[in-house]
């Protein structure tokens, strides 16, 4: 299972690929709404994350969700899947 650092890097890499930016440029983003990506791009990125880890993100993710919270949520979902 990927650790938090690994997961964060992968998530930002996927989001960056929809936003036409380098992942490093998003390092300072606190919440999901701080990321330089529109709603369509975010939908695509969420879908790709689900595909990458064979999971479903479910409800509860909002623009105010912090990137750290998102990583924690993902870790929990992946862990539950492998439990």
């Amino acid at each position: 299972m990927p650790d938090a650092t690994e997961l964060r890097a992968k998530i930002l890499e996927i989001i960056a690929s929809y936003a036409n930016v380098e992942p490093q440029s998003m390092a300072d983003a606190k919440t999901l709404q701080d990321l330089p990506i529109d709603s369509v791009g975010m939908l695509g990125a969420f879908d790709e994350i689900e595909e990458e880890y064979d999971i479903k993100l479910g409800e509860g993710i909002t623009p105010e969700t912090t990137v750290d919270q998102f990583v924690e949520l993902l870790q929990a979902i992946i862990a539950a899947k492998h439990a």
Partner: protein
Amino acid sequence: MRKIVITGAGLCSPLGWSLAEAREVFAQSRSVISVSPISSPERPRVAAWVDADISVGLPGSLVKTADRAAVMALQASDRAVADAGLTPGSFDATRAGVFLGSAIGTIHSVYHAEEALFRRGNMPALTLLKVLPNGAASCVSMRHGFKGECTTFAVACASATTAFGAALRQLRLGELDVALVGGAEAPLVESCVLAWENLRMIARQDIEHPETCFRPFAADRTGVVLGEGAAMYVLETEEHARARGARILGVLQGFGASADAAHITAPQQEGQALAMRKALQNAGLGPSDIGYINAHGTGTKLGDATETRSVIDVFGDHAQRVPMSSTKSAHGHLKGASGAVELAAVLVALNDGILPPTLNLNEADPECMLDYVPNVARTGVRVDAVMSNAFAFGGSNCSMVVTRY
């Protein structure tokens, strides 16, 4: 009447990504048909396809929301715009349009979305955006900032040629100064290929010798080899092109269309001949002015024989003298994009004096008795005017006439 000129060409096709690469294939009398990416031991298949990373250099925000055909259209349009030397500010964006043809549009994305539905129990989130039939034209418009008009044409195998006709009209009317025009097709997925196979339209598949499978006008022809790809061109009014010092590749001199109003698959001599006559009339030329015909030539028994009769009907005695080839034997049948990729052959004939051959034409068919430029390209030929035919399922026929500038 305004003269409409072609000032840029770009491809993302089995022939290559530029007019120069296509010229090499034609000049070498070579086929680019190979083993299909969806060939399997159970279903051995051949196809003409783009064996390269088609997303290179494009923004993820476009590539990831677009069908494979749209991505190829983007690559082709980038190259056409660069080839034309069209830079931002060198044209009025509100008088720049996009006209794009595609027969089966977004089947690639439809297939992969349904595959995901069965595998994951849900459709990919961006499916709707990828399956919109106007997606390719829209992507091209967004990429290059063409704001005057953006239209998609779905006219089966005549889609791209129809797009050229529509662009020609708008440019002549003075509604636009410049247009990106062409076609894109990405049919190489299991469901689409099976659909063609089940219609008994596909040539006998020989994966040991893929380049020999497509045999238009030959006695031993067995049908079509499918292809994928895109080709886009910059069209402008002559005045606009000259004002910015553009190099001119040719003149889109005339266009004609007709409808058979008869049968969903069986081509009709009357309808095809009407489209060719209208194109000649629109171009202000007579049959004897045409020095080369780029045939629709799909390698079907009925199609090739009908096209031959139609050409004899329109061209009379000149039909025996005018060379006519089906370049599909080299690059496969790109369906809705065929008229666009075949315009590359037209421009090579006009500008390089090279008549691309009909490959694999070893055994003459008594019903096909014209000069099809068999097997070997003809070089050093002066051609001033070319006709290009596209005849579609549904009975939609289109012909266009391109002349030397």
